[in-house]
């Protein structure tokens, strides 16, 4: 039978290569185990993931997009960096307008700039991760209960996602804990800082008793390490401070200090199915972890949508995805909200620790243990999206 190709456009080289490569492996694994091994979709068509290296540059992504389209691919998966996603969603919108006979669909599995499902939303873009606002909402719920926190320092990468995190933090903290003083709100260049010590010194000197950061990749490794070195002993609330070498680097110095908001759940495992999935991946890639649980949802939901639409035509599939409900491996129910194409799902806050860890990260003994969960319904936030749909 035929194959359905999905272009994976993400950094496979450069400072964020590790994140991208891991994502690629997870995509391949998800496609193989969740779709292909079960006989494919639409009567036996197999999913094939075709990697394209974008070096995390928006420009290079468009170059790769052109190539992917040139190869006849109609599904584009991307996640690393909202900067790239913003460029891609624009370009895909333009492409579909100019080539209505050969549209492509954008499966955003990780770029969480809220704008993508608000001001910039369009029919061709679907986001399977919770956006930065949703996550910050959950995170600040936790922070709000910590009475000891009086001063908070915000630090992030200088691009749309970093800015979104900062803005969300200011907004939600202002609503939930107006007494907390934001003693620093800093953005640093993404992927270019060689030494985070000056930042750590500054955080330390500001007297902050908690830090919030959306940093990821090498920028999280560096920040985590520098904060550890100064001996700063305060809780750090993060989006992506785990795996890809980060957990290993932070090690014991971050125990019970680092909290992370995500849509997935590592420990304790919730059921057999997810355990098998994790174990299967680990067996195949002993040096890697499931870093982005949503990838499984993306692949699974795409397959379901195709079955539902009875075709692999992107327009039909997109229409099928709108409003679709999907049961994830964790047993959660995920809904693709039709109005803005934002997946609504439970959000969890986990802590970095080495106790009660079944699935550790970086083979370090440390891992994420879930402390609290926000239900899908509670996590949903309103959207300002006004979407044009093809007739």
């Amino acid at each position: 039978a035929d194959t359905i190709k999905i272009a994976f456009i993400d950094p496979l080289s450069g400072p964020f290569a590790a994140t991208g490569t891991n994502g690629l492996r997870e995509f391949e694994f998800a496609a193989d185990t969740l779709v292909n091994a079960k006989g494919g979709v639409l009567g036996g068509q197999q999913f094939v993931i075709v990697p394209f290296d974008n070096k995390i540059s928006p420009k290079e992504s468009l170059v790769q997009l052109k190539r992917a389209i040139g190869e006849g691919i109609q599904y584009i998966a991307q996640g690393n960096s909202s900067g790239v996603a913003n460029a891609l969603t624009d370009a895909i919108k333009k492409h579909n307008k100019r080539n209505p006979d050969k549209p492509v669909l954008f499966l955003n599995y990780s770029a969480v700039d809220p704008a993508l499902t608000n001001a910039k939303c369009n029919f061709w873009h679907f986001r399977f991760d919770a956006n930065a606002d949703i996550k910050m909402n959950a995170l600040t719920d936790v922070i709000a209960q910590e009475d000891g926190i009086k001063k908070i320092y915000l630090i992030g990468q200088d691009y749309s996602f970093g800015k979104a995190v900062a803005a969300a933090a200011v907004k939600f903290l202002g609503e939930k804990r107006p007494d907390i003083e934001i003693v620093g709100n800093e953005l640093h260049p993404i992927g270019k800082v060689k030494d985070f010590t000056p930042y750590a010194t500054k955080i330390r000197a500001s007297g902050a008793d908690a830090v919030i950061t959306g940093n990821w990749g090498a920028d999280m490794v560096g920040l985590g390490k520098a904060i550890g070195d100064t001996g700063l002993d305060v809780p750090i609330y993060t989006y992506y401070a785990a795996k890809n070498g980060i957990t290993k680097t932070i090690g014991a110095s971050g125990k019970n200090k680092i909290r992370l908001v995500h849509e997935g759940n590592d420990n304790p495992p919730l059921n057999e199915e997810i355990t098998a999935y994790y174990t299967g991946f680990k067996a195949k890639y002993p040096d890697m972890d499931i870093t982005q649980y949503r990838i499984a949802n993306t692949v699974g939901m795409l397959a379901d949508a195709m079955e539902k639409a009875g075709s692999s035509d992107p327009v039909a599939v997109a229409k099928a995805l709108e409003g679709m409900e999907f049961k994830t491996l964790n047993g959660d129910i995920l809904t693709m909200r039709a109005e803005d194409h934002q997946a609504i799902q439970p959000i969890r806050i986990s802590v970095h620790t080495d106790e009660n860890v079944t699935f550790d990260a970086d083979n370090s003994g440390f891992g994420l243990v879930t402390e609290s969960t926000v239900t899908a319904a509670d996590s949903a936030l309103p959207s300002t999206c006004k979407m044009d749909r093809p007739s």
Partner: protein
Amino acid sequence: MSEIAKTATAENSVPFVKRYGVWIGFFIMLMVMPYIFSSNVGLYTMNLMGIFIIFALSYNMLLGQGGMLSFGHAVYFGLGGFMSVHFMNYIEDGSFIFPMWLLPIFGGLIGLVFAIIIGSFSTRKAGTVFAMISLGVGELMAASSLIFVAFFGGEEGVSGDRTMGPPLFGFDFAQDVQVYYLIAAWVFVTVGLMYLFSRTPAGRMANAVRDNAERAEFVGYSQRKVRFVSFCVSGFFAGIAGGLFAINFEIVTEENLNALTSGVVLLMAFIGGVGFFVGPIIGAVVFTLLQSILSNYTDIWQLYVGVLFVLTVMYAPHGLTGIMMMHTPAYRMKRMGSLLVPYLRIGIPTISFLAGVAGFLEMIHHVRSAPVDETLMSLVGIEFDTHSVMPWVVIAILAVVGGYLAKTQVGQFREAWETANNPDAKSEGASS
């Protein structure tokens, strides 16, 4: 198009076709290319080539013709791009009515303006001082582009829509082919202009200043002014290339003016051959091909590209054009035929050697990065198990035997080469 050959044609008795033949051929080639490579990838690659051809040629005005080693040429390219994309957006807003196809002019102009500003102090000296100022200015601009979000759009850059201008002969530039013709037209015109520039007094003196700046001052030319003129013209053309980039990709980002882009253009010009007018054109073509095609076939293509660069610098100091030009004496003496067999004798084992090495690398890479239980891999359509001995043996034989045979052939090849190029050798060289 080497210099010396050119002065020889100074007389105007040369027949029309001979004189303009190259240009006519170039024109025809530009016209028919999209019919030969009509796929999306083909068009995409050719568009990129066109942009890089202009960019690399403008760079060579500095390095090859003026002896100025710049590490910051992307500044003019990038600024040209940003300017053009802004104008593209003005056109889209309707606040400005202008044909899209002339947009690169704005790119050129801003390139020119910045070249005038920066050149006014950087061209005072050549050599390391110039190189380092260009590096500094380049990094400065790149870093500033992340800070001044209003103009540069920060990390995400600025995007636009090229289809919003008044159409030209029914071209609205929605399709890549139309953009191809736009780029081709610009390539034709700018390549012509840049070639002509090298034949003007300012262009000739740029050469002279490169060769011996002090002496130029004693025949009436201020070295600084000579460099400045080249620098400005070069900035202008780089800006045009940037404008075309903006039209083609509809996005311009910090990368367009950062050190990497500056490095790439340096590499293209050098690999092609800075000593020849056509060098950078060839460099741009080869580089683009490598970048867009090699990456289709292998994960570790960058490793190969790296090896290729290093080898080119080591063994072809005058670039690919230099290698081609090395054959002119033999060609003139009609002895190319006598080189065929020696080339085959050394070429086949060499290819086997390279195939062996590449195969080895690919297999190692596969073993290391593929999932644990996946031992099957396929190379050039052949599928095999990397955990069995056979493939490794095959690869080793290819590499070792090929390498050994190639080595034994070096002597005969050198000899054949000497005879083919030696004007005194009688025709016995041809028959052997």
